[in-house]
């Protein structure tokens, strides 16, 4: 046994690939049917394939090693392999049609989404009728997850619709008196929930890490969500769950990054993104969800502005969404709006790099031109915490 001298990290010996062709390549023309004539194929060429076992032939891992008759038995014609793949994926598409629809609903508008939903929705309707979605629902419940009711309408859309038509509901309730603020202490800190879409991913933990010990902040991020697509994720229903389970005194919301898209109303009317009707509907929906979080003044809510986006088109939407949420917050007892643009922009315009607290340049934005990088989140968090300090008169 010889100790290796080269202490550098080394992988195992690399594979020995197929030997170079010793003659003209075997021109099997059977394609998927497989079974080329063994006369056409030099035996040496087959050996590595037999030995490969899912990896390079000279370095099979314990799991994939073959080099035995069993390995040869494992090899099947391409047609059968394809049949297996197609059958499994096809069955999954049928048995998990609701999940397929859900995935499609979460996609950005475009050809992929249209094609997927165009195929998945009819499949879902049929599978629901003949109860083929039962096994998946049963499995989902068995693992402790909630199953979405089939075809249920979101409170977000219905309450906003009532508000639009002047009917009272969650949105139209008269402003209630604010619950007086208590004085949080280190022993009994202020319970803060930072929630929203992926904008909270870096911001929430940064608020948690930089807050004084009189504040205890938790973060719940729901990626790819917003207020325009309650069919994909229902923030109204989820806000009720959050309030019931977490009982926050202050809810900090950063949301809207995915909402630069049209809103489809319950009656099928589509409000194009950027239109005045779209902005008005967004304001109504924001009002609905704000009222759920604040319980009409029992809790406080701080809605953070969307930071400027690199894309001009998106930035235009963000300005409209900011105006809508600011207006919505003004009409909800306990809700307020914090405009972070002065600190997250250069003279109001998007900038990747900003000036940090120490006066040095910091990378404030992520590659996508929407999200905050860690240092950008620190800038935002500092002003959020200033707001909390002044509101709750924290030391």
């Amino acid at each position, binding site marked *: 046994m010889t*100790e290796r001298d080269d202490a550098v990290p080394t992988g195992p010996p*690399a*594979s020995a690939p197929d030997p170079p062709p010793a003659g003209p390549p075997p021109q099997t*023309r059977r394609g998927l049917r497989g079974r080329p004539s063994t006369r056409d194929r030099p035996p040496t060429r087959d050996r590595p394939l037999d030995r490969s076992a899912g990896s390079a032939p000279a*370095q099979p*891992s314990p799991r994939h*090693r073959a080099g035995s008759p069993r390995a040869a038995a494992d090899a099947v014609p391409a047609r059968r392999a394809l049949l297996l793949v197609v059958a499994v994926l096809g069955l999954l598409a049928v048995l998990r049609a609701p999940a397929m629809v859900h995935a499609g609903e979460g996609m950005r508008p475009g050809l992929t989404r249209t094609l997927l939903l165009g195929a998945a929705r009819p499949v879902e309707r049929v599978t629901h009728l003949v109860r083929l979605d039962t096994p998946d629902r049963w499995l989902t419940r068995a693992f402790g997850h909630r199953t*979405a009711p089939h075809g249920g309408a979101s409170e977000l859309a219905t309450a906003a619709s009532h508000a639009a038509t002047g009917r009272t509901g969650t949105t139209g309730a008269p402003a209630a008196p604010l619950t007086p603020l208590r004085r949080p202490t280190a022993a009994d800190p202020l319970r803060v929930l930072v929630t929203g879409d992926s904008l909270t991913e870096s911001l929430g933990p940064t608020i948690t890490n930089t807050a004084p010990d009189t504040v205890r902040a938790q973060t719940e991020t729901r990626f790819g969500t917003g207020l325009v697509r309650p069919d994909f994720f229902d923030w109204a229903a989820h806000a009720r769950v959050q309030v019931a389970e977490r009982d926050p005194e202050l809810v900090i919301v950063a949301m809207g990054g995915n909402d630069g898209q049209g809103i489809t109303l319950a009656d099928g009317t589509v409000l194009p993104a950027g239109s005045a009707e779209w902005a008005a509907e967004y304001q109504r929906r924001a009002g609905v969800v704000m009222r759920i979080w604040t319980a009409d003044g029992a809790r406080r809510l701080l809605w953070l502005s969307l930071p400027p986006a690199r894309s001009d088109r998106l930035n235009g939407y963000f300005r409209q969404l900011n105006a809508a949420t600011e207006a919505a917050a003004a009409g909800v007892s306990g809700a307020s709006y914090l405009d972070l643009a002065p600190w997250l922009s250069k003279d109001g315009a998007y900038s*990747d790099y900003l000036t940090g607290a120490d006066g040095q340049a910091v990378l404030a934005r992520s590659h996508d031109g929407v999200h905050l990088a860690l240092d950008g989140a620190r800038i935002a968090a500092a002003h959020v915490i200033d707001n909390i300090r002044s509101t709750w008169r924290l030391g």
Partner: protein
Amino acid sequence: MIFPTIEFAAFFVVVMATSWLLMPRPALWKPFILPASYFFYGFADARFVLLIVASTLINQAAAWAIHRFRDRRILAAAIACDLGLLGWFKYYGFFALSVDRALTDAGLPAPLPLLQVALPIGISFFTFQALSYVIDVHRGITPPAPLLDFAVYEAFFPHLVAGPIVRASEFLPQLATPRDPARVPTTRAAFLILGGLIKKVVLADVIASRLVDPVFDAPGQHSSTEIGVAIYGYAVQIYCDFSAYSDIAIGIALLLGFRFPDNFDRPYAARSLQEFWRRWHMTLSRWLRDYVYLPLGGSRRGRRRTHLNLMITMTLGGLWHGASWTFVLWGALHGAALVTERRLRARRTGRTATARPAQMPLPRAERAADVPAQPNVPAIDSGTEASSTAPTSRAVGLATAPAPAAAGTAARVAGPVRGWAARLAVFHFVCATWVLFRAPDLDTAGRLFARLFTAGGPAPLVTPSVVAAIAVGLTTAAVPQHWWTRAQARFTQMSLGPQIALLTMAMMVIYAVVGQQDVAPFIYFRF
């Protein structure tokens, strides 16, 4: 496009069917698989397809020029081009900001504009493959391939985004002849893909979302117990996440008739750090060995130079993972630990390291394989020039494959107790350094280590399900080999119907475990 998505499933069904239909006609298959791979790559952002096309053309031109003129300057220019692309896209922002800060501190104006350069996904992987190609052509290991072959090699979609880093000498010969449509190793592919999904969706994502992310995001609000378990959890998460991607990539390639090298071999069972690096991200390790460490001189230029070479190689390996000081420190710590380990070993054996022939011990899997001996192939002696100029995959493989005596020094000298102590020590060192890998900055890493020993209190995040996921992730390394063999044999014996039913049921259970939650991106996508 990422693997566990509906888009990829649809893409793969079409590609697999068309690929096998066209396979007997390489003149049609190659022009098909190349745009298919570009489609896969450009699905999220089509602009970057131009980058991979440019990389292909530049490196192919360089390879032919190197082959024809045998001029090192052409090689140097090609390497500079590749590293320049990588440096611009991956490191410019980090470099410019670091310079800006240093000069601002000194009261000087910053000379570099601060730009946010978009990071093309997979650039580290395809650049490394291209580098290995031109260097191997220069070394005479690989002849220049036809442009279409090289383009397919660089862009072949199963390995394009996050490896394994496949060498030209491993892949190009597979393009020389059509893959055999009569012998598709479906069982192995199915086990790899299914196992990968379990590791990713059931283990890695659960551990991440329920424990690791909350703790690493806000260490100040978590107790020592939570932090300690989260550190173990991250070790399991990153292994399950990355090895899952590799397994799925290897399985998908198998379904198309191609073989990739393995990328992991039970890394947490390693009894030395050296052994760990032969079991973790193996295709990167061997790349660094052959194209960084050995050209630097390996261990042939004395003890101090060897140590320096190790430090350089590992620090660069750290930087490869990301433009951040945490990765640099992570790599440097591994380098320093490898140096320390090497010195301890030399002291223990009472001989200087350079006095011994440098023969690589086989990975465990390799030893177990009944690879026929190659008595005519000499062991690689790191003291010879040949090892740095011709570290071919084949030469290395042949040199090491037959070494039955290299069954692990640790086992011989250690005995079971010492062996387990070594395993635990290596595992804990690796876990501790993973903190740097995961933490967003050095301050957070420092806070985690400080609170690891000082923060009492309850540990509500350490739930039975999280602990079970961590335990399962760790014990996958202990599953006896014959269990896998037997399971695969049983699956192979089944007829098509039960195979379909079993796989469908398994997939449904996997996705039911996570519920309606999106699969998180693979960790190694950002590298």
